[in-house]
């Protein structure tokens, strides 16, 4: 299987990521834990440094020059994110701390103003805890009921079962776009069309999809979309919640404080308009500014090229992995992103992770914050290799050598 390396600027890309060029336990680092967090190109680090060295000032409030500069750069990221998601307006782009924060914002809003006893919230059996627990809490608070769409043994969303679950009591469907543990790409458009046919809004957890797939929130027609910057080559502590204006207007504020207000007195406070209504307090300004550099970096290479390249890495890795006796790939959906989760008969994933680490290989082992999914699949956890734009076929070769050595030691 040949990778189109002649066209893909892999050497230039790898040069842009300084952290990749180090040794771990005396071996070159092979970073295959990108689904947990991605590494950052030096351009992002420089943008963060520039923020603190040159323009740091609190945003939206000051009239002095630094405040205007930092506000302009902060809002420039908002514009860039609007383009990245093809949202119709920057008013629909809310900065959060990440996907978990964004989902909590929506779940809280629904709990406060929409959910009544007996109402239903629909999620799937493959969700990350961040798209389970906020809804469990919301249901507990309001007497609403959580319904779960089942999956098949390949880790695919069962659309027929999903359709059966929807009824007049369903108030929201909240589904992961791409599974972090399995790599499964869910049929988001169909899920949304179906829900909308019954007047039900849909939140898409875009934590994994936003770096691998082209996201067009208008085309998807999702009502909410959450992403985390640190999974898209940006800094931690920054995220985006996209929401259709009609929905963001409907939901009450999530956190109270400065910035999200229009006027404050002790008898009454009025709230600011979108998007500031949901941006209480001083945000991670430097992180938001640096995030723009990450989006620009991706656009410069092209999401489509990155997707093709990552697809080839996945095919190559899968082929090599299946050659190992006793190895079973977990998550064999027809549509997947570059995540390869697996178990090996008779070997515990923690032991594999430790021996791989001794050889410089960074993978994730365990339940991947998807305990219900692991239960459904009848396993305690997996070893997960997840690839990004800077990984290579050579790294996969080294990984397979290291994995074979680990298997030999542990069997």
């Amino acid at each position, binding site marked *: 299987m040949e990778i189109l390396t002649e066209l893909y600027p892999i050497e230039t890309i790898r040069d842009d990521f300084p952290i990749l060029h180090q040794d771990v336990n005396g071996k070159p680092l092979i970073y295959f834990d990108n689904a947990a967090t991605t590494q950052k190109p030096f351009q992002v680090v420089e943008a963060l440094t520039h923020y603190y060295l040159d323009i740091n000032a609190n945003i939206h409030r000051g009239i002095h020059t630094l405040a205007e500069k930092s506000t302009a750069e902060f809002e420039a990221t908002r514009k860039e994110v609007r383009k990245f998601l093809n949202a119709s307006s920057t008013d629909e782009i809310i900065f959060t701390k990440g996907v978990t924060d964004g989902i909590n914002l929506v779940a809280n809003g629904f709990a406060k103003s929409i959910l009544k006893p007996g109402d239903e919230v629909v999620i799937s059996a493959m969700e990350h805890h961040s798209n389970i627990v906020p809804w469990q809490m919301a249901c507990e608070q309001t007497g609403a009921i959580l319904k779960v769409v089942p999956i098949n043994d390949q880790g695919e969303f069962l659309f027929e079962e999903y359709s059966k679950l929807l009824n007049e009591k369903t108030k929201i469907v909240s589904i992961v776009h791409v599974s972090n543990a399995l790599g499964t790409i869910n049929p988001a458009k169909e899920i949304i069309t179906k829900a909308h046919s019954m007047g039900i809004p849909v939140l898409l957890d875009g934590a994994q999809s936003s770096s691998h797939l082209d996201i067009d929130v208008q085309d998807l027609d999702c009502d909410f979309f959450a992403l985390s910057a640190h999974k898209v080559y940006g800094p931690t502590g920054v995220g985006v919640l996209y929401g259709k204006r009609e929905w963001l207007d409907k939901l009450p504020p999530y956190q109270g404080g400065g910035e999200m207000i229009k006027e404050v007195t002790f008898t009454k406070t009025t709230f600011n308009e979108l998007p500031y209504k949901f941006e209480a307090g001083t945000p991670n300004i430097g992180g938001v500014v640096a995030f723009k550099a990450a989006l620009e970096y991706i656009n410069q290479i092209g999401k489509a090229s990155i997707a093709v390249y990552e697809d080839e890495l996945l095919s190559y890795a899968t082929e090599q992995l299946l050659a190992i006796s006793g190895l079973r790939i977990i998550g064999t959906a027809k549509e997947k992103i570059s995540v390869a989760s697996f178990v090996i008969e008779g070997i515990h994933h*923690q*032991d594999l992770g430790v021996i791989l680490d*001794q050889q410089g290989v960074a993978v994730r082992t*365990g*339940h991947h914050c998807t305990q219900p999914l692991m239960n459904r699949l009848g396993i*305690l956890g997996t070893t997960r290799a997840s690839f990004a734009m800077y990984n290579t076929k050579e790294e996969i070769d080294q990984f397979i050598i290291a994995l074979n050595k680990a298997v030999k*030691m542990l069997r």
Partner: protein
Amino acid sequence: MTINEIQDQIIEEFELFDDWTDKYEYIIEMGKKLPDLDAEFKIDENKIKGCQSNVWLTSEIKDSKLNFFADSDAVIVKGLVSMLIRVLSGHSPDDIANADLYFIDKIGMTQHLAQTRSNGLLSMVKQMKFYGLAYKAKMSKD
């Protein structure tokens, strides 16, 4: 032998290893040799908190000495646990409660005691010392 004498013996054994492969193969071998716990002891009450692997620990006092029995579904953890048992089992609760487990660092296994929630080894050590304290208190009351 005292707790520290056993620790020093282990440190000496590990000094013979040239590279990480030999070291881990030895630990894995110890893990495979440690007898499995009977199913009746693999209950929630005996489970040590650790995210990634299941670890069970139980203890028994005999002739004023505290003995430990443990098991894990991850073999490297089992190997490290078997060393802990070798060091601590068969000593007085007081000695166990006060033990300073320096051998783990000296054999280069400190990262397995790390604070990440992905391993139960730190909790295991705490639990063994806790048993020491608990039995010590019980014995001084009796």
